[in-house]
């Protein structure tokens, strides 16, 4: 039971992470290869506050705020660069974050921060809480998609220059996407810190950023159910199959390649294609 609960807790955290990145990359079209840095920001912020005696629920908002503010700062970079340059910039942010954390004694350096107080719930309770937050993140994502904000994100992802000449406040919306998406990563970080009760630099590296991107791409860029499925799959698979866990990087690289090459819509796209094929007989 404990093992299952902690596994589902991690799955819930990954769902929140992937949905946050989906807002930035899927909805708004801004590639990010540094999402784990915001996750780490939230985790470290929560760890420090918890160690200083702050109760669990008081820590969540500050963790989101810290990650969100860093997200806005990185968002300003997204106003200057596009596409592959943005990928490199966000990747740089990820390395910068780790580089700084590893050097700072007050952040535990290489050792990390341990003995973080828990949330005062048993493992099942904490799992339910995390899954509850994941459900909230999904609801927010679905709401944004249907709101005017979702439409504008869609326009920016479609053609940024055309959005500008349509009078759209492209800069403001990009910053909003980064702020919301990274704040969600901050929440995931806080949940991680209290759940695992240890944070160290090795959990927030480049591989983790790639893993989150992989969940989004494999699930289906822009699709809420798809991204949730992608997060679940890539959380559970390495746990169930040891060989997968040994070759994590290979798996991510291979999946990214296969999906972009053969099914750019990810699992959601495949599901749509199958539903469409089942719905009407195919013309030969």
């Amino acid at each position, binding site marked *: 039971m404990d093992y299952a609960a902690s596994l589902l807790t991690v799955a819930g955290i990954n769902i929140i992470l992937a949905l946050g990145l989906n807002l930035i990359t899927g909805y708004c079209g801004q590639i990010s290869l540094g999402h784990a840095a915001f996750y780490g920001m939230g985790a470290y912020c929560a760890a420090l506050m918890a160690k200083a005696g702050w109760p669990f629920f008081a820590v969540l908002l500050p963790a989101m705020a810290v990650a969100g503010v860093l997200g806005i700062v990185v968002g300003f970079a997204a106003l200057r660069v596009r596409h592959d340059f943005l990928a490199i910039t966000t990747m740089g942010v990820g390395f910068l974050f780790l580089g700084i954390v590893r050097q700072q004694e007050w952040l535990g350096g290489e050792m990390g921060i341990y003995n973080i107080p828990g949330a005062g719930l048993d493992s099942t309770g904490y799992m339910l809480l995390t899954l509850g937050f994941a459900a909230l993140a999904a609801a927010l994502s679905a709401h944004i998609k249907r709101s005017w*904000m979702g439409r504008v994100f*869609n*326009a920016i992802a479609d053609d940024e*220059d*055309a*959005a*500008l000449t*349509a009078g*759209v406040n492209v800069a403001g919306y990009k910053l909003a996407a980064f702020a919301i998406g990274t704040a969600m990563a901050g929440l995931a970080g806080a949940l991680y810190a209290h759940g695992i009760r240890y944070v160290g630099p090795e959990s927030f590296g480049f591989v983790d950023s790639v893993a989150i991107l992989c969940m989004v791409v494999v699930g289906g860029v822009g699709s809420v159910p798809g991204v949730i499925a992608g997060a679940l799959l890539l959380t559970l698979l390495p746990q169930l199959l040891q060989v997968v866990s040994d070759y994590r990087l290979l798996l991510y690289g291979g999946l990214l390649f296969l999906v972009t090459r053969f099914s750019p819509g990810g699992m959601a796209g495949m599901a749509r294609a199958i539903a469409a094929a089942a719905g009407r007989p195919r013309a030969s």
Partner: protein
Amino acid sequence: MTALLEARGICVSFDGVQALQEVNITVETGELVGLIGPNGAGKTTLLHVIAGIINPQRGDVFLDRRSLTGLSTDRRVLMGLGISRQLVRPFYSMSVRENVELAAGAAGMRNPLTALVRRNSRAERRQSARILALVGLEAFADKHPGDLPLGMRKRLEMAKCLAHKPRLLLLDEPLAGLPQTEARALADTIARLQNERSGIVVIEHNLGEVLRICSRMVVMDNGRCIKTGAPERVMADARVRAAYLGEGHAGTG
């Protein structure tokens, strides 16, 4: 002096190549200005400077005597510029109607937080219906831009501009690539958009149609404005003829 648009001393160079050299242009309200000149004369570059798509090395642009210098393109659009670029760029992921709605809602939705709590789009829907009728696209409202012929996509481009009730409409080669009958119909539509409170600048190679609809011509060559005035007078000018003949450009596109 109550020029609607005034651009003064605009200089632009790309990697040392002077694309615009001390260009001045004014547009008064009620004018439909035809901006012509051989390929590479700098017409598109001038439009991009006015639209804020590129920043000039020198020079200033004023709309209604307010300086546009340093403002982003979207801000200029909200201040009254309608920008239709040479290559049509609709949002291919949305229907024709949604394209226009998005532009119509842009002014009210500057703040992303207001957009977060907004679902319905009744006002934008009404406005887009009116504009689509104005440019003759009402029958295509639910189609996707990718399914429209070029002429209709050009009208969509214009519809997106009109959603902001622009004071000054900038059109870059709206007739290019259209068969003559369609070009003529679209030129008529452009002429109909003209009124006493606004202005239009149309860059065009189809001289027959610009001459027919514009009230004044501006001719550019080699990054300079070489002549401006009434269409007949401009076309009779020796320098204008030389610029065109030198390019091997016969005229009516």
